């Protein structure tokens, strides 16, 4: 077994790990040794092929096909240099005050998160796309919402030099999306932080951890030789994402000491609806996600977002098969798409566990209130499609495969709550939150509001697993802001911790 020693080790390089690495990097100038250990590889620019199957394999855990324990949802979790910031759409929203108030974490204020988020908005070149760069798919979403009087807002995006390739979720082939792989990690490396890819941490203890380096069949090889490592570190910051941070702690025996570990997982369960227009629209080129509608956020617990996916993902998200399904797929150039995000409640029983081999298992039950939200969202989205001029709509809980424009007035009857059934419709999650939630009570939280694991000085969490409840919007900027807090605490306590 190889031996390594650092002062600070950060596990994971996504929104949390990348932000912590960059914030702590100036310490390297004082002789402090910092490493980031990243499970996945660093892809070369020419490896961003835009092919769905190929990129899913390169960018996502289990190729994006990990299922919840009951098989009712798929979970998309990024892996590799930059984590999920490589494969998300770059939407950069500051969490609303009322959401942070609902979290009710002592010592954590909305003002603090918002001011830190502001820093990352600037750092990541976040801006609104100009009108001429919005494609028809997005404009139609806005048009439909406005026609119906639904509130609709434009997403701020972290882009630089976007050419409208339209494959954000497969990693930008033009390196336009300003994720941690392009902003925070390179800056950290320039300051002396060592980023080690293809390095999977299997066990974390007090001031030590064990990891395995094994190169992937793609991307740059790790800078470390393949093999097992024992690594000492006085400060360990776990940023492996909601599922794998919890699983790492559970595999390392922290479950007995931290009863809330892995629990209170929220997922923003999501589904896709499709509307078909009579004429071709610009849809699969141009940024896919320009607008969101929060009109139903408080009343019905869901958000709607413009979106556009690729042939396989689209096919999988339609309910049905055969000639009608093929017919809709062949209308790809005329399709408008809407993504639904349901705001789920944090329940202790929704949790990360580990199986006999130490692999994470996500035990999550879709509640009836979440299914109600998904049902209501299908009706709202269908109305938006028709208000935007769609000729027909495919709703996953439709009584028929297509709802025609002439039937738009009968949406209430044509979309059925009893067809919103897990296992029948495709429900996915790309926003995994909780498991190491912040708080003061050891029974209901894992860390304090600064990401310090209860009872373990020197052990921190800085990723989406900190969220005590759902973020209720796309969470990436919140994760960076929380990671920024964690880094500040480490800097201020560094004298005691080292």
């Amino acid at each position: 077994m190889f031996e390594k020693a650092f002062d600070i080790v950060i596990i994971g390089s996504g929104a949390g790990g990348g932000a912590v690495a960059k914030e702590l990097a100036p310490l390297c100038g004082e002789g402090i040794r910092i490493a980031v250990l990243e499970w996945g590889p660093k892809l070369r620019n020419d490896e961003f092929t835009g092919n769905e199957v190929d990129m899913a394999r390169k960018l996502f855990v289990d190729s994006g096909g990990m299922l919840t324990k009951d098989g009712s949802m798929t979970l998309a979790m990024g892996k590799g240099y930059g984590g999920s910031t490589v494969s998300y759409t770059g939407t950069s929203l500051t969490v609303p005050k009322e959401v942070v108030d609902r979290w009710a974490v002592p010592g954590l204020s909305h003002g603090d998160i918002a001011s830190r988020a502001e820093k990352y908005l600037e750092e990541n070149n976040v801006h609104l796309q100009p009108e001429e760069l919005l494609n028809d798919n997005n404009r139609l979403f806005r048009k439909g919402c406005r026609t119906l009087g639904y509130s609709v807002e434009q997403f701020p995006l972290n882009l630089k030099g976007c050419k409208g390739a339209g494959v954000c979720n497969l990693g930008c082939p033009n390196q336009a999306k300003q994720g941690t792989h392009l902003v925070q990690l390179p800056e950290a490396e320039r300051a002396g932080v060592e980023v080690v890819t293809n390095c999977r941490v299997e066990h974390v203890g007090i001031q030590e951890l064990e990891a395995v380096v094994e190169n992937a069949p793609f991307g740059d090889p790790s800078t470390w030789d393949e093999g097992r490592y024992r690594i000492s570190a006085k400060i360990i910051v776990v940023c492996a994402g909601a599922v794998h941070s919890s699983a790492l702690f559970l595999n390392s025996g922290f479950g007995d000491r931290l009863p809330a570990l892995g629990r209170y997982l929220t997922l923003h369960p999501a589904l896709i609806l499709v509307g078909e227009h009579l004429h071709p629209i610009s849809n699969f080129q141009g940024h896919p996600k320009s607008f969101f509608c929060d009109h139903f956020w408080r009343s019905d617990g869901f958000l709607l977002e413009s979106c556009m996916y690729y042939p396989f993902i689209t096919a999988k998200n339609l309910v049905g098969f055969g000639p009608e399904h093929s017919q809709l797929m062949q209308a790809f150039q005329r399709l408008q798409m809407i993504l639904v995000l349901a705001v789920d409640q944090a329940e202790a029983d929704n949790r990360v566990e580990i199986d006999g081999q130490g692999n994470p298992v996500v035990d999550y039950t879709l509640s009836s209130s979440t299914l109600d939200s998904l049902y209501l969202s299908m009706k709202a989205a269908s109305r938006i499609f028709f208000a935007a001029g769609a000729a027909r709509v495919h709703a996953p809980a439709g009584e028929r495969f297509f709802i025609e424009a002439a039937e738009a007035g009968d949406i209430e009857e044509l979309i059925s709550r009893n067809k919103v059934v897990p296992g029948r419709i495709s429900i996915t999650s790309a926003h995994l939150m909780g498991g190491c939630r912040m708080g003061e009570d050891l029974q209901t939280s894992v860390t304090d509001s600064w990401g310090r694991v209860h009872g373990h000085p020197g052990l921190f969490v800085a990723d989406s697993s900190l969220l005590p409840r759902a973020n209720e919007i796309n969470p990436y900027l919140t994760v960076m802001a929380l990671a920024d807090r964690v880094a500040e605490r480490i800097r201020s306590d560094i004298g005691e911790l080292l």
Partner: protein
Amino acid sequence: MKNLDPDTVKRLETVAAIVVPGYSSIDSEGRVRFLDVIDEALGERPESMQRQLALFLKVLNVAPYLRWGRPLARLETVDAERALRWFQEAPIAKLRQGFWGLKTLVFMGYYGQSEVWPEVGYSQDFDGGAFDV
């Protein structure tokens, strides 16, 4: 094939032709690509999943005996679609999920091929030309 035995391939292709009618007219290279994509995807997952797939395909094939007295592979298209639709809407979650998983594999094998993009009108242009309709 590393993870698909010949019987499973045969049953999988029967289902593929019902789920994606275009599969029946795919050329031999497309068929190889379809099977390769699925075979590789299965190779990344636990062996238990490969066994579940093989078992589920067997169940799908013989279940129509109960109503039509024939296996899925020998049903008229309209009846084959009806049989699969029963699984999609099945009252038992495991059957619905099994069918959803199978359908997803078929869509991955078929629509995951860039060679199929022209059929659906999808294309990629990484370097501008974003709004030419």
